[in-house]
């Protein structure tokens, strides 16, 4: 029964065919002879099993001794004996129980009899036996039934005599006595029987034979179970010498194993470990299991699950260990493979989910950004219409309240526009669309220009200063547009948060910072560190970390008080990083902040002035070059409302003014200054230097006629007003230096009639653009396609080209490319190559013209990132999105005709 169950279990558990633990072809013939039929799972076959005693190897002298002296050894025998004893006990107990029951019955009968005798007036009906035992007792009920059957005849005692006479009672007593006697007799017989059976039991065959039989069966059973199992069993004494082994390796002989230790028998990996393990168990006295992989010469690499238990003698002394090992090589291999697979699987899954997450996030981000950019762009066009119209409206006749309302509207609109532009800039940088241009420029001029521009709209009593170290190269290469954007942003930021003191830019050359990775650039590049410092309100330390984050300002209070989009610094940081630099900030509350950015620049050769492509060099530089200007390291500007003075700087806050003034009619300016009378204080000193210039300006402005002054934005009229007011007030004091006057006149002549070329094929667009130009006070030439444009550019020196992108014959991009190619090479070969019919009437083309970079502004129908990128990539400087509005045109002209 047990056997059946186990074989079934084994079959269920392990269905695969196992190869023998030890190889078949090893060992001597004699050792290899367990030709036993495969056992069927039937317990009957057990007796037929031929037990291969040879498998076991034991030190026969010591093993019986061991069996007798140890608990384990005698346990089987003890068990058998105990079982036998138990069985005997059981039989005795059963007999005793029966005896007990009989005795009780007798007692009851006697008690009843007594009762009957005592009760004289007892009825003929005998009462039922009062149950002493519980009614439910099965045994009792059965017994009672049996008793009743037996006694059924004598149950009713028939009395002939009359009731309650003496004779009656006598008769009844007699008959009852008879019944009692019969019962006693029966009892006696039963006791006899019991004694007899006890005797036969004792005389029954001695248990030894039975036990021997049982032992043999057990042994046979063990052999039957174990003969094919991949199991090694053994016993080792406390020196770990084998006394007994079962299923040893076939080639080993008795003398090879018995009396020897593992280490003496085997060599290789795992042997030592197993020996140590056995020793450990022996020392600790606790049975335990371990998996050990053997790597021996004898049987190669095999893993065994080893169970070792200590063996004690009866005096509880350790005398050795029992050892059982099961070969689990395949299982271990499978298990390891599984684990590895599972691990790989988990890792792959984790990676996959991580990847999907990343992809998802990236997609979402890109979509969100794209959406923001698109939305911003869609908003920008109508909004610029609103702001433009509002600005135009502000030039009409309005009462004071209307004007105030309108000013609020315009400034709000400007803010939103600025925000949108910022967002577009940011998304351009982030999406990697923004490309950097490499142009030569003069850092000193850029700093000066930024400060001048800032000073122009300065409404506070601040000193703006620029300080450029001598070692900073005259001419460097970089994306001047972006650098200017950063500087302007930082400066206007500094001005915004500074109420007194100064704001300035400091430039110095530093050694290559640690974060720079590119080593190849070292030869020609220079790292310039630019500090933009102020003496403003400063930034609390806890606000520093989020300073460069988008839409963040140091605090909500600041945002309310100072306004702004919160994007400026984020853009600066992104731009600086895009150019491979770093933007940092240090600040102390109430003392000021310093924003520092370091950028790498290529050093350009400064001697080649004719090839100077600097877009920001002032007219002054070309027509009246001042040697100081390129090398001057210090500028200082003050707000125009205060006195203008300079410390050593030859060019002060005057250069930027003429251009603004040009577009401003005197009448408007006076209006402006009346509206803001606070500005008119403390100007007397300024005029001595600048006066002549301004007079000429306002006169020349008249020449344009056409009421061009209408288009001046309110902001400009404010910034211009102070200077204009001063010139009005001080016009009698014509104490100007002749040099200044001469210079300004030259300038006016130059700028009086800027040459503009419009390249556009659409007649209606031409008509509208021309009309707009007229209102802004300019005229322009028209070319209908790229080829015409090239010919026009060849013949005439233009100050600005407005170029449609999409045109028949030759599009704007190609035309621009060809013009740029001419500027670089000085000849039109590329254009001729491209099939343009260059009329060579004026033979000395290249030499006659200056090769300054001609500003080319694209006019494009869709201003999406790729389109504007294309424009930049083809050498255009900027672009106006169509349809062209007065506002856009004006901004463009302001930018490029200064």
């Amino acid at each position: 029964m047990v056997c059946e169950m186990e074989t079934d279990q084994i079959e269920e558990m392990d269905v695969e065919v196992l190869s023998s633990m030890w190889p078949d072809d090893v060992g001597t013939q004699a050792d290899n002879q367990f030709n036993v039929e495969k056992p069927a799972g039937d317990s009957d076959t057990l007796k037929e099993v031929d037990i291969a005693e040879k498998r076991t190897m034991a030190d026969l002298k010591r093993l019986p001794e061991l069996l007798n002296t140890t608990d384990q050894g005698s346990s089987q025998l003890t068990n058998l004996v105990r079982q036998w004893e138990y069985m005997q006990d059981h039989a005795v107990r059963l007999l005793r129980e029966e005896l007990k029951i009989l005795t009780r019955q007798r007692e009851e009968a006697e008690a009843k009899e007594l009762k009957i005798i005592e009760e004289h007036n007892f009825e003929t009906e005998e009462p039922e036996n009062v149950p002493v035992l519980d009614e439910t007792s099965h045994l009792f009920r059965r017994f009672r039934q049996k008793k009743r059957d037996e006694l059924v005849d004598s149950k009713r005692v028939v009395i002939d005599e009359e009731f309650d006479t003496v004779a009656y009672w006598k008769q009844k007593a007699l008959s009852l006595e008879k019944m009692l006697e019969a019962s006693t007799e029966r009892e006696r017989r039963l006791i006899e029987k019991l004694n007899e059976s006890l005797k036969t039991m004792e005389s029954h065959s001695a248990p030894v034979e039975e036990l021997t039989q049982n032992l043999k069966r057990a042994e046979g059973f063990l052999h039957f179970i174990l003969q094919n199992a991949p199991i090694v069993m053994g016993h080792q004494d406390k020196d770990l010498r084998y006394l007994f082994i079962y299923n040893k390796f076939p080639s080993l002989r008795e003398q090879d194993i018995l009396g020897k230790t593992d280490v003496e028998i085997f060599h290789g990996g795992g042997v030592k470990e197993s020996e140590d393990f056995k020793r450990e168990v022996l020392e600790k006295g606790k049975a335990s299991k371990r998996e050990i992989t053997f790597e021996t010469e004898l049987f190669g690499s095999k893993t065994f699950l080893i169970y070792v238990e200590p063996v004690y003698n009866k005096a509880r002394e350790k005398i050795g260990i029992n050892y059982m090992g099961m070969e689990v090589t395949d299982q271990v291999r499978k298990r390891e493979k599984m684990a590895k697979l599972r691990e790989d699987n988990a890792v792959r899954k984790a990676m996959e989910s991580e990847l999907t997450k990343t992809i998802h996030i990236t997609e979402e981000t890109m979509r969100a950004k794209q959406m923001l950019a698109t939305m911003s762009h869609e908003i920008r066009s109508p909004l610029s219409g609103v702001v433009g119209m509002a600005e135009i409206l502000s030039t009409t006749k309005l009462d004071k309240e209307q004007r105030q309302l309108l000013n609020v509207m315009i400034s709000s609109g400007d803010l939103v526009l600025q925000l949108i532009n910022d967002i577009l800039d940011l998304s351009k940088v982030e999406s990697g669309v923004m490309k950097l241009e490499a142009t030569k420029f003069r850092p000193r001029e850029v700093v000066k220009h930024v400060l001048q521009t800032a000073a122009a709209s300065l409404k506070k009593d601040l000193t703006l200063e620029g300080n450029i170290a001598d070692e900073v190269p005259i001419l460097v290469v970089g994306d001047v547009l972006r650098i200017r954007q950063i500087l302007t942003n930082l400066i206007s930021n500094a001005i915004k948060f500074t109420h007194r003191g100064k704001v300035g830019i400091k430039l110095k050359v530093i050694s290559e910072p640690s974060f720079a990775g590119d080593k190849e650039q070292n030869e020609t590049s220079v790292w310039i560190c630019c500090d933009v410092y102020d003496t403003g309100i400063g930034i609390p330390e806890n606000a520093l970390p989020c300073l460069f984050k988008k839409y963040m300002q140091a605090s909500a209070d600041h945002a309310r008080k100072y306004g702004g989009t919160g994007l400026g610094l984020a853009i600066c940081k992104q731009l600086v990083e895009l150019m491979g630099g770093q933007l940092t900030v240090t600040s102390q509350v109430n003392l000021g902040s310093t924003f520092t950015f370091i950028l790498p620049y290529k050093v350009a050769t400064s001697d080649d002035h004719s090839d100077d492509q600097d877009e920001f060099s002032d007219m002054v530089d070309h027509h009246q070059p001042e040697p100081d200007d390129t090398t001057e390291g210090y500028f200082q500007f003050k707000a125009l409302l205060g006195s203008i003075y300079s410390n050593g700087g030859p060019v002060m806050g005057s250069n930027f003014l003429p251009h603004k003034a040009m577009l401003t009619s005197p009448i408007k300016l006076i209006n402006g200054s009346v509206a803001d009378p606070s500005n008119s204080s403390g100007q007397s000193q300024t005029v001595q230097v600048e006066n002549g210039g301004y007079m000429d300006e306002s006169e020349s402005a008249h020449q344009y006629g056409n009421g061009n002054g209408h288009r001046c934005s309110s902001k400009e009229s404010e910034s211009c007003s102070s200077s204009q007011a001063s010139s009005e007030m001080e016009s009698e004091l014509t104490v100007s230096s002749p040099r200044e006057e001469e210079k300004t006149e030259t300038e006016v002549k130059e700028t009086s009639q800027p040459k503009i070329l419009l390249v556009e094929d659409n007649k209606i667009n031409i008509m509208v653009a021309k009309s707009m130009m007229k209102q802004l006070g300019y005229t322009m030439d028209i070319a209908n396609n790229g080829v015409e444009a090239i010919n026009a550019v060849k013949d005439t020196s233009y100050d600005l080209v407005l170029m449609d992108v999409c045109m028949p014959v030759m599009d704007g991009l190609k035309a621009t490319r060809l013009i740029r190619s001419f500027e670089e090479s000085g000849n039109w070969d590329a254009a001729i190559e491209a099939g343009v019919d260059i009329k060579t009437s004026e033979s000395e083309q290249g030499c006659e013209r200056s090769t300054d970079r001609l500003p080319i502004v694209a006019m494009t129908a869709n201003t999406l990132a790729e389109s504007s990128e294309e424009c930049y990539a083809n050498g255009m400087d900027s672009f106006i999105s169509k349809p062209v509005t007065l506002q856009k045109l004006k901004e463009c002209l302001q930018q490029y005709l200064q």
Partner: protein
Amino acid sequence: MELVQMQKSLQDYTKSLFLDGVLDSQFLQLQQLQDESNPDFVSQVVTLFFQDSDRILNDLSLSLDQQVVDFKKVDPHVHQLKGSSSSIGAQRVKNACVVFRSFCEQQNVEGCHRCLQQVKQEYYLVKNRLETLFKLEQQIVASGGMIPAMELGF
């Protein structure tokens, strides 16, 4: 009294054009460009636009009716029309042109035909409206009135 009413109705009419999206702010730009030195600027530009567009639409109809449609010819026409309609602020024509161009890009003849109908419809709408507008203006001028300045608050 009548003049004031005419001016009012002109204003309302113009406003409705903006509200309906027939015109956009670019038209205001044109109106801004019109001054004493150039009193008929708007109608000049618009007339030029009509002439130009009539021709383009004609060319487009011809091109699309060809057995094999040459999209290289169709697209520049649409581009041209888009440019000029955008310049005068004929918003709905412009929008229709944008869709038209996307169908050109896909070389979808069927879509192009539909778009041409759409563009034509929008074009005749804006043409009709603008002609009415000019007529109103002329009446006002003929009655010795001033063309009221455009309200910017629409």
